């Protein structure tokens, strides 16, 4: 049987040449410059510290804003990295044929995971006390005036098996276990993929499928719990039962946008010739569909809280909507992550042509950063937050670092899984 896909160069590798590296480094330098400007401005803005002290509680220090920024980007880019691996696993678990030539692009995002793990764990030790309200021993001390019965009730979730208010063993254990397994599954996938390129045959595909299924089970639990740990616990009193899904959907849309952008970028550079507008169309549908899914979860969370109007729940939105710092960003968030992608990507042509997808995916990557900004900053900084030089700089620094690591990882292996049993099917994919 003739395989038409054999007409293409299946041995191609991504050449991470000096030109691409240089442009990413330029972004990195611009980001660093903006970050330095932002830090200097924050250090000089001493007036804020007094306001913070007046408002009661802790005095505000400039470095808290830096910490919050590090945390936003830690969580956000960890999400994009793990979604790459997750989407890869979905393709195998669902026995998808259409996506065969772009699976390695998805997997490449996992290269950020080991670095994300180190950054996240290290920054938790350095910044945890300033970011997380629950890391204050007096909250758990019945004799203290700061004693908080609600947080005391949740204390074991962070501190078990240690005494509440001492050292969050359970929390850190979860963080290490999640990252450990994520990195383990990622390296496992990479190993099987490398073996498949070397040896061929269908056995690797079946192996990949089983491991994907195990990973998906683990990810179903870990994605939710990590969202509670890393994001929801910032607003320690508050809770939302769909928060895990909400964070996951935000990650997923951002990750899908990043994958789509990278595929279009590679196609523009002349790689992945067998990927045509039909595959791009499918990626576009994913981006479009999951933008709506994100909106559905956002609105489900908002409507129930708004309608029931229970103080302990509605405080989350009051803190954001009635704030002069964050109020506007709620609407920016909806416009960028729902209205614009919904209107622009609605037609078939928009999903098949790179230019619209490039525009919308870039917008969504920034938009979902804004979403995480809105989740993290109000709880950590209060009215001292906002989007300034520091936020933009930190985002650019993290973004370009991720791009360097992901493209570097992509360049190491084959760009196309040349022995994937469904490569021919994918070439004939037609919608």
């Amino acid at each position, binding site marked *: 049987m003739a395989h038409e896909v054999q007409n293409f160069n299946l041995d191609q590798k991504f050449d991470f040449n000096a030109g691409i590296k240089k442009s990413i480094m330029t972004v990195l330098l611009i980001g660093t410059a903006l970050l330095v400007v932002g830090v200097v401005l924050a250090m000089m803005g001493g007036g804020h510290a007094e306001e913070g002290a007046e408002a009661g509680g802790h005095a505000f220090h400039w470095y808290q804003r830096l910490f919050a920024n590090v945390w936003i980007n830690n969580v956000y880019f960890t999400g994009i990295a793990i979604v790459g691996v997750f989407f890869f696993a979905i393709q195998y678990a669902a026995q998808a044929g259409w996506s065969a030539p772009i699976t390695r692009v998805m997997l490449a995002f996992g290269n950020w995971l080991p670095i994300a793990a180190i950054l996240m764990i290290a920054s938790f030790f350095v910044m945890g006390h300033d970011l997380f309200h629950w890391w204050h021993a007096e909250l758990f001390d019945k004799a203290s005036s700061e004693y908080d019965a609600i947080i005391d009730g949740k204390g074991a979730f962070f501190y078990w098996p240690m005494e509440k208010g001492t050292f969050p063993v359970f929390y850190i254990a979860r963080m290490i276990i999640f990252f450990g397994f994520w990195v383990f599954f990622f390296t496992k996938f990479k190993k099987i993929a490398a073996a498949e390129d070397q040896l061929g045959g269908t056995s690797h595909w079946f192996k990949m499928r089983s491991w994907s299924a195990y990973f998906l089970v683990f990810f179903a639990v870990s994605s939710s719990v990590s969202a509670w740990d890393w994001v929801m616990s910032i607003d320690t009193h508050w809770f939302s039962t769909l928060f895990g899904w909400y964070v996951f959907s935000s990650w997923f849309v951002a990750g899908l946008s990043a994958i789509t952008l990278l595929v279009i970028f590679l196609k523009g550079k002349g790689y992945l010739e067998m990927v045509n507008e039909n595959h791009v169309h499918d990626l576009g549908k994913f981006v479009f569909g999951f933008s709506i899914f994100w909106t559905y979860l956002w*609105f489900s969370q908002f*409507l129930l809280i708004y*309608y*029931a*109007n229970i103080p302990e729940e509605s405080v989350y939105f009051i803190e954001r909507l009635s704030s002069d710092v964050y109020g506007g960003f709620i609407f920016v968030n909806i416009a960028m992550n729902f209205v614009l992608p919904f209107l622009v990507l609605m037609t*078939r042509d928009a999903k098949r042509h790179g230019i619209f997808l490039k525009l919308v995916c870039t917008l969504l990557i920034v938009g979902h950063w804004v979403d995480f900004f809105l989740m993290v900053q109000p709880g950590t900084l209060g009215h001292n937050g906002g989007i300034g030089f520091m936020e933009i700089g930190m985002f650019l620094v993290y973004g370009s670092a991720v791009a360097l690591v992901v493209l570097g990882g992509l360049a190491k292996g084959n760009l196309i899984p040349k022995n994937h049993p469904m490569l021919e099917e994918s070439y004939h994919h037609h919608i």
Partner: protein
Amino acid sequence: MERDTHFVLGVYEDEDVLMNAVKEVRSSGVKIHEVYSPYPVHGLEHALGYKRSRLPIAAFLFGMLGTSLALTMQFYMMKFDWPMIIGGKDFAAFPDFIPVSFEMTVLLAAFGMVGVFMVSSNLKPWAQPRIFDVRITDDKHVMAIDLAVNSGMGEEKIKEILASSGATEVNNKSFDE
């Protein structure tokens, strides 16, 4: 429509032969009325040069109609017709209206799309379908060519083209309607 219609039918046994035949027949200048087959043949609609369906536009318009109807209804009822305080909210509490508006959008888009599809495909209950050949529900592909549309070309010429394109049978079929 009270007129007799006369067709020439080419019967094909294989889908690959059919696909090539469609291209051949079209390039020889014959306009194909329709191709009937027992199962969906992948890519046939492209070979026949069908334009994209405009059904999504109808769906969008009906959806918009649903949204506006739902919002109008709710604003009218809750703000003007019978204002009630519910949960201490405004009479015209916009977030409350979203779920109903969403449902109405989906409902009218779906109904409208089905309705438009039925009208445009002539799928009314009393419609008399033209049955070109009973074997199209079994194992034969049939290409129908309307002689009136291709009046510039002789019937014999069309039959010749069909036969040379791989049709195993070439038949005539007429309908009195």
